[in-house]
């Protein structure tokens, strides 16, 4: 057992000696590291945005706001109370909560200044409505009819209606990130093809000798495959580590901002697993590309 392990180690050392140049000697591991870094960041952005769109869609699909557009404050409060009762009695509504006027005023203060809290401005009352799951559009239509029967000054707006463009933008950004990942994969493949061809050219003398001694194409391709696989492994590990560090730092900054929207850009366990698989795929891709390139090149010789 020990002897066979030593034997394997000696065989591997002999194979490694056939193609010289130490690890991390050439540009290949560094290029792979940069590619992997950018791939992981793009993939993380895509996955985070997709999670955010999913969470936003789930949120938006079941939520609506009821506005009480009444200039008279007393009438507005009365109408708001009536609307609240109606909503809470409706079977399509899971919960209905009035939005604190102070909170509303706070949000308006950047545009209206102190006038927002003076009471002189007729700011509509708002009721935040959470619908029961399923057929949000139909439920909103039914509630619109019920509230319309109470007063024409009651308006219901599904959140999806005004956040839809944002969700569309986030989805587009998510696809853009996915596109960048695909481009990175193609670029990595191209880099490996060039590296394998370069290595093949610079070792042509050794390869010719091996061929004439009876080496098969597969034996020779394996040498390059192993060598490029090791370079890709080192580069991927480096790029992945840095990318994860950057993602963690960005995550900390996002959560410190306290924004609901940005807070939704999160990576769940599935997303982390996908990110972890990317370097493995990168190394596999590099090895297969190197093998294919060398076999193709050797196939053109005798």
């Amino acid at each position: 057992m020990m002897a066979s392990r030593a034997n394997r180690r000696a065989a591997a050392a002999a194979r490694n000696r056939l193609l010289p140049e130490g690890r991390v000697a050439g540009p290949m591991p560094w290029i792979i590291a940069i590619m992997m870094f950018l791939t992981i960041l793009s993939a993380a952005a895509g996955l985070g945005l997709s999670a955010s769109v999913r969470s936003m869609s789930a949120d938006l699909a079941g939520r609506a706001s009821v506005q009480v557009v009444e200039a008279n404050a007393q009438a507005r409060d009365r109408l708001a109370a009536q609307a609240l009762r109606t909503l809470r009695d409706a079977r399509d509504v899971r919960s209905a909560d009035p939005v604190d006027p102070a909170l509303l005023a706070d949000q308006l203060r950047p545009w209206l200044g102190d006038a927002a809290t003076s009471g002189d401005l007729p700011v509509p009352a708002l009721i935040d409505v959470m619908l029961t799951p399923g057929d949000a559009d139909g439920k909103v239509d039914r509630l619109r009819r019920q509230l319309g029967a109470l007063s024409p000054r009651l308006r219901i707006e599904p959140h999806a209606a005004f956040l839809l463009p944002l969700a569309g933008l986030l989805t587009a950004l998510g696809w853009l990130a996915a596109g960048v990942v695909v481009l990175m994969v193609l670029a990595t493949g191209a880099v490996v093809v060039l590296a394998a061809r370069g290595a093949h050219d610079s070792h042509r003398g050794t390869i010719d000798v091996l061929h004439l001694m009876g080496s098969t194409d597969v034996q020779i391709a394996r040498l390059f495959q192993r060598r490029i696989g090791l370079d890709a492994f080192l580069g991927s590990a480096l790029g992945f580590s840095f990318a994860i560090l950057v993602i963690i730092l960005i995550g900390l900054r996002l959560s410190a901002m306290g924004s609901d929207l940005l807070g939704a850009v999160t990576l769940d366990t599935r997303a982390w697993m996908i990110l972890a698989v990317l370097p493995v795929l990168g190394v596999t891709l590099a090895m297969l590309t190197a093998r294919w390139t060398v076999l193709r090149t050797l196939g053109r010789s005798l």
Partner: protein
Amino acid sequence: MTAIVQFENVGLRYGLDSETLSDVSFSFASGGFYFLTGASGAGKTSLLKLLYLAQRPSRGVIRLFGEDVVTLPRDRLPGFRRRIGVVFQDFRLVPHLSAYDNIALPLRVAGMEESEIDAPVAEMLNWVGLGDRGQARPATLSGGEQQRVAIARAVIGRPEILVADEPTGNVDSDMARRLMTLFEALNRLGTTIVVATHDLPLIAQVKGAQMMKLDKGRLADPTGMLRYPPRPQDRQ
């Protein structure tokens, strides 16, 4: 006596140039010792390239070990190449490998276990008088030493045919004689030896060896005795 090599009307042309070899027909008997002579540019190296399967002919038939190798698929060539040892004119030692690793190459290519490689390589290094230079890189070896490494590498796999292109071109007459003695020893063990040289006194040293002369890509005596080589035991 079985023919181990057969050429029938072989022609070789590089690109659109005129033929480097034309209508070459001969056969080598298994266990024979053959010299290939001719002036520089006569086509000796081209003929040897066809013999050790570095090149396919433009026309004609080449049979090695009884099989037509001209139409042989690429993936079957390695098996044939492993049965042929080659001493290249320029040695073609792998520059970044030690003498030991260079000699061990054919065994590693053949998939031999590392534990089984050490003894034959050490024996071969001693055989060519380089027992203490195993870890030396080719660049640190003299021309003669490099040549001996190349010869050791060519014979370590006990090939059925040994092809040597100008093996004495870089060595003094004493070393040339010793190399021929090595080749004769191998020949006695059953290896068919084919040596390209224009060193006629060298040919005279090997008793019973047959000579084939190339002139401008053609055999000088295409109907000569090489077509029907005598048995090795009749060579004396």
